[in-house]
């Protein structure tokens, strides 16, 4: 298991009798990786191990080929944005980010300059001299992101960075992450906002009950599941006629009318057969279609399918 920026080898973590991670092995490659799983799945435990906050009970973990536990050398290459809203008392946004830079060994002047540059990236310059405790949830997320960015890390580890942000803040953070990705940064991002993660990540890691459920590109994962049931949504003024016709296609499990007056929902156990037959049907019968898509073709559906 070599070549990844993060190598997790048979790592387990026990909290008394509770298992946080169970023989977890994965290699995280360069680029942006999404870490997904329900609450208590072990995502944060894994991220805290990668950042050296928690020591594995068993197994090995390396980042850029280095052990991470109490290793300043590895810390220099990482920036971590924790999930929890934890801040030092009596600090402005600028002081918070600057203090983190000073803890990396910068002089006060250098730290101030780096902090302002990082705060500019998260678009909080106008509020940097206000107390963090007066910030909105979204602003607090962005200032945490700024402290993660302040020392120009090679690897950014973001635990639920979009949690609590408003739509505009969310777009800003996502745009920033895209920029960072384009500039060659490696990013690991965990979230349960699946449709947003889906827009951001090239590859995903699905975790449940402390175990690796699946890893890879979303489409690769989908392709690997031959019998993954898919819901197809068709919009057509002829939905009842189409509904009767598709019942004869092999693999179709159910057909139902949707909430909208032109919506038809079809559940198939074998998507390739369905699409092949349906395409012929549309051509031969000259069916009128407004649109065809799949509400299941996203991480949310795959995730639910995989972990239940």
């Amino acid at each position, binding site marked *: 298991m070599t070549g990844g920026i993060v190598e997790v080898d048979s790592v387990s973590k026990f909290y008394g009798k509770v298992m946080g991670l169970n023989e977890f092995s994965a290699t995280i490659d360069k680029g942006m990786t999404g870490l997904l799983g329900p609450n208590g799945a072990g995502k944060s435990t894994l991220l805290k191990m990668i950042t050296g906050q928690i020591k594995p009970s068993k197994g090995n973990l390396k980042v850029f080929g280095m052990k991470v536990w109490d290793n300043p050398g590895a810390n220099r290459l990482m920036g971590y944005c924790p999930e929890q809203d934890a801040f030092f008392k*009596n600090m402005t946004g600028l002081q918070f980010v600057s203090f*983190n830079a000073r803890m990396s060994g910068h*002089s006060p002047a*250098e730290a101030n300059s780096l902090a302002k540059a990082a705060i500019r990236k998260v678009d909080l310059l106008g509020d940097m001299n206000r107390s963090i405790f007066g910030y909105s949830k979204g602003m607090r997320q962005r200032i945490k992101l700024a402290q993660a960015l302040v020392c*120009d890390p090679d690897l950014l580890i973001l635990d639920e960075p979009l949690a609590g942000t408003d739509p505009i803040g969310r777009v800003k953070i996502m745009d920033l992450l895209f920029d960072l990705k384009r500039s060659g940064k490696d990013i690991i991002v965990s979230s349960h906002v699946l449709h947003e993660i889906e827009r951001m990540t090239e590859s995903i890691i699905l975790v449940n009950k402390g175990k690796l459920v699946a890893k890879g590109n979303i489409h690769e994962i989908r392709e690997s599941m031959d019998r993954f049931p898919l819901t197809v949504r068709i919009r057509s003024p002829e939905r009842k006629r189409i509904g009767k016709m598709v019942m004869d296609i092999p693999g179709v499990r159910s057909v139902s009318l949707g909430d909208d007056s032109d919506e038809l929902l079809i559940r198939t156990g074998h998507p390739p057969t369905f699409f092949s037959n349906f395409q012929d049907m549309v051509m031969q019968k000259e069916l009128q279609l407004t649109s065809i898509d799949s509400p299941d073709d996203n991480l949310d559906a795959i995730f639910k399918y995989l972990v239940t």
Partner: protein
Amino acid sequence: MDAKGRGYMEGLPFRGLALVVRTVKDVYLTKGVLLAIFFLFIPPLISIYTLTNAQEGFKDWWNLFSAFGLILYLQLLVLLYCLVYGSSMINEPLDSRTMTYLTMRSAKRFEIILWKYIGLVFSLQLMFSLSIIATYLILGSHGPISDIRSNLDILLILLFTVDMGIAVYVALFSLFGTAFKHPLMIGILFAFFWEVIMVYLEANVKKVTMMHYLQSIFRSNRTISEAIDLGDATGSVFSTIFLLVMIILLLSLSMLILSRKDVN
């Protein structure tokens, strides 16, 4: 300038100073500091009250100062303040989860203990010094100015003893705060049932308390034996060395525990 920061050794003074200053600010820039200062200025207030209510001028005010030093400062306020601040030195950042930021940077975990300890001990010593000097000057104002000058050694010994007390008890209670999730109760039991009561027991029993060695240092003050009978004392040089060794041991234990502790 490499944005990732200086090398480990090169960056050491910068992050050390940052964490020391942060710790001092944590002590002084909170609402709780007003209460802390109020309690510390009870001895000067008592001094004022004593002077204004004395029917006749009382002689040997330095004996009263020594008694204040032993009872109010050493056995009560030093223990209380070190318990409150020392037990939260590492426990609070662990509890509030700000420890994550400290352990994610270039500092090794033992450094976090060291810098925070220096910052906290300095903050408390400054607070106590001001209070002790104020008490000394208020009591000394009762007599001629020459008495203030000639009894300066008593003041200096008390300042030294209190500084040693702060150094050793902060090390002890910060160890409790690093090792236990709820260190305050254990600290209260230790401070007021072990340190204060055991020190008045006979012979060798008292030597298992740190208060005994602090009292022994303070006993080198020429007036204390006139004020309070402390029984057998250990030599002040030995006591100082013993307490310094204890500080190193206690801090090393805290560092060892934090270097193995998960930060959740």
